[in-house]
């Protein structure tokens, strides 16, 4: 039945058209006029569209964010949340006029740190692997592992940090470089010289990190004022891990900083590191040259003053800049010193005041070249050793504690083909042994960073 409907309609239309022949001419004229107007209308619209296309093709046009986002390729969900990974490779070639084996810092206790000029010839340095990411809206986490040339992996830092505490507070926990002074928090690849200043080597075995917690507060002022406090397990020189429960050791620090116009900026700080040592052992030799194992038990308190000043013409650090920095540290230790733990096991009082400082300047004179100069000086002081004053033993029974004034002068030049590679030539006149014979040390070092673009600390 339905098949007949269209036919019926056609017939009806045909009849209607045939039935009104007189009006056909009028309609044709009207249709032609309508078509003409449509045509001219479309011409205008096509021209407008063409103009828009030309405009779009000639330059990029801003688009709303949602569109731009949808245009970006979606990363696979399995890897999209991978942490930022960066790896720093370091290596050096060293030439020293004296045997590095007998290098020591006169008057300062050996502290077990990887200090000194290192080995002669070619050495693979520490490869620093860092993984970092936000955990959630409240925390970030970071791991920095050092893979040493001796095939060991050391956890340099592994910590969480808060993102959302109120009132300018930031908390950090895990293992981290302590926030005292200026250089202690700086990773090896970012040092301006191939090694740490002597005062850091002597008093902290290069850098002090511990397992613990840190709380920092930043004042809500235009002047930068930062206060920090740390506590932890107290381990790491000059402290030792105590046998009891609870927290051990306190570090307090304050930093203040600001600008001097557009071209220069500065930061100064003061820090206090209060630790306890319990049976802190070190190797020495008695007056006859027999090896002995001694130990210190008592309190170790260090205060640190640090200052940094940076300047660049127009404040444009990319082209030329100057960086001056210096730190002074003084440590007082008092308690008991045990002599020859394994045999004689004599114990009496011990008190010492030791200090040191360095001053350095680094100048970037063209975008890829920097030159630097550093002077180090230490004063071991004369420790009051109860066993010596009582006459039980001679000063010569404690050769590691014989007073000394070690010093060193270092010059360096580095070439930075890009932000990610550095070649450094460093020359030191090292008198750490304080025996009148200068150790001339030449170091050629390379540093390469691959992976995530890390941000640089001040």
């Amino acid at each position: 039945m339905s098949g007949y409907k269209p036919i019926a309609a056609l017939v009806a239309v045909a009849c209607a058209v045939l039935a009104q022949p007189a009006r056909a001419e009028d309609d044709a004229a009207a249709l032609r006029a309508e078509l003409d107007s449509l045509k001219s209308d479309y011409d205008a619209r096509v021209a407008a569209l063409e103009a828009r296309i030309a405009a779009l093709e000639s330059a990029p046009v801003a688009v709303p964010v949602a569109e731009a986002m949808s245009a970006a390729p979606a990363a696979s969900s399995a890897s999209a949340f991978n942490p930022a990974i960066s790896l720093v490779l370091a290596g050096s070639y060293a030439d020293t006029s004296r045997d590095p084996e007998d290098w020591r810092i006169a008057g300062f206790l050996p502290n077990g740190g990887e200090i000194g000029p290192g080995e002669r010839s070619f050495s693979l340095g520490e490869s620093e692997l860092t993984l970092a990411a936000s955990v959630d809206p409240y925390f970030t986490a970071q791991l920095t592992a050092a893979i040493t040339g001796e095939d060991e992996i050391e956890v340099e830092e592994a910590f969480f940090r808060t993102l959302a505490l109120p009132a300018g507070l930031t908390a950090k926990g895990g293992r981290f470089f302590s926030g005292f002074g200026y250089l202690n928090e700086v990773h090896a690849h970012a040092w301006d010289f191939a090694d740490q200043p002597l005062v850091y080597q002597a008093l902290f075995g290069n850098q002090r990190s511990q397992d613990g917690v840190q709380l920092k507060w930043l004042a809500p002022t235009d002047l930068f004022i930062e206060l920090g406090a740390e506590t932890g397990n107290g381990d790491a020189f000059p402290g030792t891990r105590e046998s009891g429960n609870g927290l051990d050791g306190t570090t307090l620090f304050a930093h203040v900083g600001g600008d001097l116009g557009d071209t220069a900026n500065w930061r100064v700080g003061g820090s206090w590191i209060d630790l306890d040592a319990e049976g802190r052992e070190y190797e020495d030799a008695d007056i006859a040259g027999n090896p002995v194992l001694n130990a210190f038990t008592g309190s170790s308190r260090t205060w640190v003053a640090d200052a940094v000043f940076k300047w660049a013409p127009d404040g444009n650090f990319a082209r030329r800049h100057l960086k001056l920095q210096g730190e002074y540290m003084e440590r007082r230790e008092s308690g008991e010193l045990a002599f020859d733990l394994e045999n004689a096991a004599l114990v009496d009082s011990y008190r010492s005041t030791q200090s040191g400082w360095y001053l350095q300047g680094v100048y970037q004179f063209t975008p890829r070249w920097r030159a630097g100069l550093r002077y180090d000086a230490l004063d071991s002081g004369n420790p009051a050793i109860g066993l010596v004053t009582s006459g039980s033993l001679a000063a010569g029974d404690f050769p590691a504690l014989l007073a000394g004034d070690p010093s060193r002068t270092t010059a360096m030049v580095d070439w930075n083909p890009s932000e990610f590679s550095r070649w450094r030539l460093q020359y030191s006149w090292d008198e750490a042994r304080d025996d009148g014979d200068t150790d001339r040390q030449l170091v050629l070092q390379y540093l390469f960073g691959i992976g995530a673009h890390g941000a640089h600390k001040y």
Partner: protein
Amino acid sequence: MKNFTCGTVALLILAFAPPSQAAVRVLATTADWGALTRELGGDRVDVYTATTAMQDVHRVEAKPSLVARARTADLLVANGAELEAGWLPVLLQESGNARIQRGAPGFFEAASAVRLVEVPAKLDRSMGDIHPFGNPHFHLDPRNVAAVAKSLAARLVAVDPAGADYYAARSADFDRRWSEAMTRWQAKAASLRDVPVVVMHRDQTYLLRWLGLKELAAIEPKPGVPPSAGYLGELVTRLAATPPRMILLNAYNDPKAANWLSNRVHAPAVVLPYSVGGSAAAKDLFGLFDDTLARLAGAAQ
């Protein structure tokens, strides 16, 4: 002694007084986004600009004064697209300020409002200091500034809802003045179409595309890589066949290489302000483009 104590107390009060009168404290990473925030925010914003036009924004120190400003900021206006990758993360981390962390309403990236060009298909640092999300120097196309303005005005309202009407009015006013200015600039730019130029770094790309200038070469062989003498020699040979009409560089660039090339290829080296504050005339965003076009048109004659 009394005077000394009074002085110390006064200093301490000055140091600790929260320095906030305006409703919204803003930390802008570049002079341009700082200027745009001032246009839109007027008296309701207190804008601190982290860098000047004379500085290379890729390489900025995360200095104490910036950490302190980040601490008290209600809104961070950044360029984004990794332009500030070398220093902004440290500011955010050290600021102890949850309001301006990534994802919070107080964290604004201008790049989120525009589509970037030169997004690298492949990421490898052998290609120089490339930006994975595309060329981040998009403020030199005024159409992008207009898009960012709309997005930023909405963000100001989100951070400071009490000023919604105020921001809407200022935003509409800015949009009107900006459209007028764009018409003016476009008319002036007609004579610049297809003029061949040599650039310093790829941070003038958006300006070139907007004006229809033709980029023959860049003085930097790869982004962030300074030219060697050998490369500059090659460039002179290459440009002999198709000489540029001018060599463009920014106020913060070292002019040495550009001037050297300028003498060899007999084309003037034109220093563009690049950012607000990059020249005496570039006092605000309008001045930036007025001066840029005046300098280009002057050199093209």
